[in-house]
């Protein structure tokens, strides 16, 4: 039979932004998928090279708008390393708490939209956004804004902790565990969900390593690799948590890995809250110019972002980075779509794409 070429996007409700896919079909079976990117390109790295260090923070956090703080923290750590500045111990704990809350928020948005893509329209979406709103409210009181918290300073934060933060966080965690464990009872017995995820979009272990995918997509294929364990930063080596992995690497495993990660994150937050003293000293300095005598070298920072491994490679200069390069996990995960969709039906394309959890602003940069 002849091959039919179908164009999907860039304006499409299921491509999670403005991604264009060119799909070759043989009958109803996918032969080849080619992602076309660049519809959101605005040259972040170039803009950052023309900005002072403290100005770039609001650029990095718009890379992954589901978990802005994670990129923000990655960039600030790069500047901290360039300036050879230590982070205060209490601020380290609070950063871990915020990072994990961001991971939960990101996974919740993913869960809601993935269930929408798959046909469980709006039930899980409504629930997960309800829980996310609680998390955002807590972080809003901590930082002052709802989505984009530019609240990191050298060595700490710019504002002291609100008074009853710990109690509220403990309560929120209880609430999250109670509510999120209910999701399982709705999602997993659903025959539609099972049909559309189990044994669909399989990414074998060797292929996953070959493609260089990262984060939950890699772990769902059975590779136990997480920067939080492999190269622990902050207080992660003092915390007890597991890295959930999948076995087959199908859509269901990718769902399961993210779902379990939410609970592991809650566990991490609980432990970190126990370590946090009542009146923590978390104030940092404003980000200033790099000391001309410091003679900074190339800086490379790795972090486990909600979507995978993020890396910043920076050649610092005195006022602004001379060169900066970002490794966005979504960018590499997107190109797994061809591998996991080949041989499956056209209807599975959006289940597969949704399971990769991509953010277009991070891909196009």
């Amino acid at each position, binding site marked *: 039979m002849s091959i039919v070429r179908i*164009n999907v996007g*860039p*304006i*499409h*409700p299921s491509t999670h*932004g*403005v991604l*264009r896919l060119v799909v070759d079909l043989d009958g109803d079976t996918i032969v080849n998928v080619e992602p076309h990117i*660049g*519809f*959101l*390109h*605005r*040259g972040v790295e*170039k*803009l950052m090279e*023309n900005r002072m260090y403290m100005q770039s923070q*609001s*650029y990095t956090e*718009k890379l992954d*708008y*589901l978990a802005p703080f994670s990129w923000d923290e990655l960039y600030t750590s790069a500047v901290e390393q360039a300036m050879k500045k230590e982070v205060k111990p209490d601020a380290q704990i609070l950063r871990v708490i915020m990072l994990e809350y961001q991971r939960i928020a990101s996974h919740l*948005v993913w869960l*809601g*939209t993935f269930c929408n893509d798959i046909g469980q329209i709006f039930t899980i*979406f*409504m*629930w997960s*956004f*309800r829980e996310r*709103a609680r998390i955002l409210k807590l972080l809003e009181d901590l930082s002052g804004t*709802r*989505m*984009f918290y530019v609240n990191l300073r050298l060595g700490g934060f710019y504002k002291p902790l609100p008074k009853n933060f710990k109690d509220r966080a403990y309560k929120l965690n209880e609430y999250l565990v109670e509510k999120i464990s209910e999701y399982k009872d709705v999602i997993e017995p659903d025959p539609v969900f099972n049909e559309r995820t189990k044994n669909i979009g399989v990414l074998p272990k060797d292929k996953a390593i070959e493609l260089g995918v990262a984060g939950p997509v890699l772990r769902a294929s059975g590779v136990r690799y997480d920067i939080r364990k492999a190269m622990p930063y902050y207080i992660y080596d003092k915390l007890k948590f597991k890295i959930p992995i999948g076995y087959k690497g199908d859509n269901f495993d990718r769902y399961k890995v993210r779902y379990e990660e939410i609970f592991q994150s809650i566990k991490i937050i609980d432990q970190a809250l126990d370590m946090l003293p009542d009146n923590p000293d978390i104030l940092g300095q404003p980000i200033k110019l790099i000391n001309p005598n410091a003679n900074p070298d190339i800086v490379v920072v790795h972090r486990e972002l909600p979507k995978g491994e993020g890396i910043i490679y920076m050649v610092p200069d005195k006022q602004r980075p001379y060169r900066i390069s970002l490794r966005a996990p979504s960018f590499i995960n997107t190109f797994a779509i061809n591998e996991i969709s080949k041989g499956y039906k056209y209807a599975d394309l959006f289940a597969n794409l949704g399971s990769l959890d991509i953010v*277009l*602003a991070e891909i196009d940069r």
Partner: protein
Amino acid sequence: MNDDLLDKDERFLNAEKKMSRLVLQASKKYKTPVNAMFTRLSDFTKAVSKGLIRWGRVNSLWPAQFGLACCAIELMDFGAARIDAERKGYLLFRATPRQNDVMIVAGWVTKSMVPRVKRMYEQMASPRYVIAFGECATSGGPWWESYNIIQGIDQVLPVDVYVAGCPPQPENLFAALMKLQEKIRDKHAGSKEPTISEDIKRAEISGIHLPEEDNSSRL
């Protein structure tokens, strides 16, 4: 933008006048209560034609399901559990522009997206309204110095309501849609002023060079 609509209104008004004249003549000839009822019926239809259509337009604004960047997450939150947008009749997000009344531009518009956004706007049925949601759609926002974006969607489309903020809170979108409803109710909606892209003089002054639409990569 609303020219054809106005034409229709005018034609309708002329027909109305003619009809009421005929009815009045008839009522002079035959003085029966039925004819009096007819005159009142004509008033009634007049009121209906003005009010009912506008009432329908005001209360069923269907936004486009079309997100570009970070602001689209707040757009999703707008449709989610915390803010129940359905109580005002806003929630029916449609994926095809042919069923939309409002286009909420949420995010920065790159030069490669301009022809696509324009085409989407052209596919919407008149009357159509545009809301610029967020700094990026209003003025370019944090990226206004970038080489690849346009500084605000109003360079290519006529905008009815601007929402400031990076990102604006979902409550602000609620306020914006209520503002738009007010505009439609008072018949101010849809600016008749040509947009920069249509007005060659203004385009020359502001020095905008929009990318030509490339027919080979038509979508």
